[in-house]
């Protein structure tokens, strides 16, 4: 599918006059357009900002097509005011619909639409196609192709001091209880670029970032998929607006009677955020965000806190599993007897490699084995460990798919690793990682051929 943009975001409002005044204040701009849709039975106010436009939509302006006005009325009945729809921009709506249908998405046939500006009499025309709510997991989306030139919708004039107005949209937030369904829709069907799939265990959150040009659609859900969440509809939740000077913006809003919390540091390092609260947002969770140059540095894009990426980066090697656990003992037979009588783990094999100063016993335990190791000289490193810490767990062997690649990769990351060498067990090669890198754990990497 051709690249989609976030053409505009629609906010459903009950009282268009009040909402227009409130959003003019929130954005620090005068409207670009005030109009009506004779064919839809709706009225609107538009604010074009740098990278998209926001549409406040209410009922009125004639009876119109009940497909649109009826659905808006139902939205008010069930959810009240709030973000109503995301309009995804395309250069060829018919082709986009064909592609989407080929991916199995149900889309209503494209139709022409137009609007009239009540003040200037200007008209704008477009062609759009709606995705039924059932097909889009409950987040209302439609495709739109504008037929009028972009300057038919002028930029909303700034009506606030330098830096204290909304410049651009930063991201739109969709709440999802069924993240895998959302991921299928946005990745597989809509073909939008997934920039990030990250889990924040300490906040019990997982987020997917989809990039539509320079705007992110953030799909936000719980860290783990719950059974109850499967098949539940998504909900449009909020909008984040980019400003140049967050303190000045908050001061302006506070002076106008709009409560803000913040500014405080955002989750992404280098950002400052504040939330705007109260009836002026008309049911939209509203975040104001200021990026500093630091927030664009690569390290700010890396996971922070306890966050981790769900899309694993390409790795030089894979740790396949636990191969065995080495347990040191001063008396191999006595300890083997303990393991046998207590846990019913039996010695399958004993070994004293030629020229070595230790004896081994292998006790299979399902997916891995326990290796009992008795050193035979006092200066053996295992003997020293027994003298210092007592007998017991000594090291773990982790199986890797490619030992040479693993050693190379670890050394590139400045981890001290010994050269690969033949292991004591047949058909194995091993390399040991220096304990100062492993929180005191003696780890050997092992490859079986």
């Amino acid at each position, binding site marked *: 599918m051709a690249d989609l943009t976030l053409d505009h975001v629609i906010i459903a409002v009950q009282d268009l006059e009040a909402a227009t005044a409130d959003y003019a204040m929130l954005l620090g701009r005068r409207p670009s357009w005030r109009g009506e849709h004779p064919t839809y039975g709706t009225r609107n106010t538009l604010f074009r900002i740098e990278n998209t436009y926001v549409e406040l939509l209410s009922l009125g302006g004639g009876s119109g097509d009940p497909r649109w006005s009826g659905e808006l009325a139902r939205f008010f009945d069930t959810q009240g005011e709030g973000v109503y729809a995301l309009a995804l921009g395309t250069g060829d709506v018919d082709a986009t619909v064909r592609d989407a249908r080929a991916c199995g998405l149900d889309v209503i046939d494209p139709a022409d639409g137009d609007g009239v500006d009540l003040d200037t009499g200007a008209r704008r025309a477009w062609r759009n196609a709606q995705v039924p709510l059932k097909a889009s997991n409950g987040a209302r989306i439609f495709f739109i192709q504008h037929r009028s030139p972009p300057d038919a919708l002028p930029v909303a004039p700034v009506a606030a001091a330098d830096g204290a107005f909304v410049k651009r949209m930063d991201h739109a937030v969709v709440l999802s209880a069924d993240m895998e369904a959302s991921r299928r829709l946005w990745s597989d069907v809509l073909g939008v670029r997934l920039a990030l799939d990250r889990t924040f*265990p*300490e906040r019990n959150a997982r987020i997917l970032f989809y990039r539509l040009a320079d705007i992110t659609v953030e799909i936000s859900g719980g860290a783990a998929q719950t059974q109850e969440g499967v098949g539940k509809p998504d909900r449009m939740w909020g909008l984040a607006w980019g400003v140049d000077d967050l303190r000045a913006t908050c001061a302006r809003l506070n002076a106008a009677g709009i409560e803000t919390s913040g500014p405080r540091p955002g989750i992404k390092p280098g950002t400052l955020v504040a939330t705007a609260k109260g009836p002026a947002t008309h049911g939209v969770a509203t975040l104001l965000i200021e990026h500093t140059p630091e927030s664009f540095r690569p390290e700010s894009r890396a996971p922070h806190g*306890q966050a*981790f990426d769900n899309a*694993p980066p390409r*790795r030089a*090697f*894979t*740790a*396949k*599993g*636990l191969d065995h*656990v080495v*347990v*040191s*003992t001063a*008396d191999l037979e*006595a*300890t083997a007897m*303990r*393991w046998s*009588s*207590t*846990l*019913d*783990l039996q010695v399958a094999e004993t070994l004293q490699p030629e020229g070595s100063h230790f004896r081994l016993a292998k006790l299979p*335990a*399902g*997916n*891995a084995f*326990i290796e009992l190791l008795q050193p035979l000289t006092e200066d053996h490193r295992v003997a020293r460990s027994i003298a210092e*810490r*007592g*007998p*017991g*767990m*000594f*090291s*773990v062997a*982790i*199986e890797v798919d490619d030992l040479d690649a693993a050693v190379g990769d*670890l050394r590139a*990351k400045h*981890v001290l690793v010994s050269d690969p060498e033949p292991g004591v067990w047949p058909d194995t090669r091993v390399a040991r990682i220096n*304990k100062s*890198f*492993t*929180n*005191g*754990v*003696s780890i050997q990497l092992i490859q079986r051929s």
Partner: protein
Amino acid sequence: MIKKVHHVGVVVRDMEQAMRFYRDTLGLPVHKLQTIQEQGVEAALLTLGDSEIELLEPVVPDTGIARYLERKGEGLHHVCFQVDDVERALFDLKEKGTELIDQQTRIGIAGRICFLHPTAMDGTLVELCQPLEDEARAFAGSA
């Protein structure tokens, strides 16, 4: 009795720093993070094939793990074996007179668990566990 090595427990001083090695350098995916209030530890479970590495950082002073860290420093702490029926396993161990830390099973991060005393295994601290979904299935089977 023993089905597999469920996990190997490692005591660490600084979870963040440990994560940088085990998660980022070694590439083990984290599948669970949990604070265990009654033991005063923060635990992270990292997938290692069909086994796991369990990182434990004491966050409350003077608990068992905190004392272990003070006395012995960071490193290998215990090995946990998965069993079919942990209640039954504990009963059998008592019958044999095995030295135990837990006289009764309890709920831990790995499910229903109990710890043997390290002297019972010549210095190795052994945990037995039965993941909770197994327990649910066992109940369903007996109904």
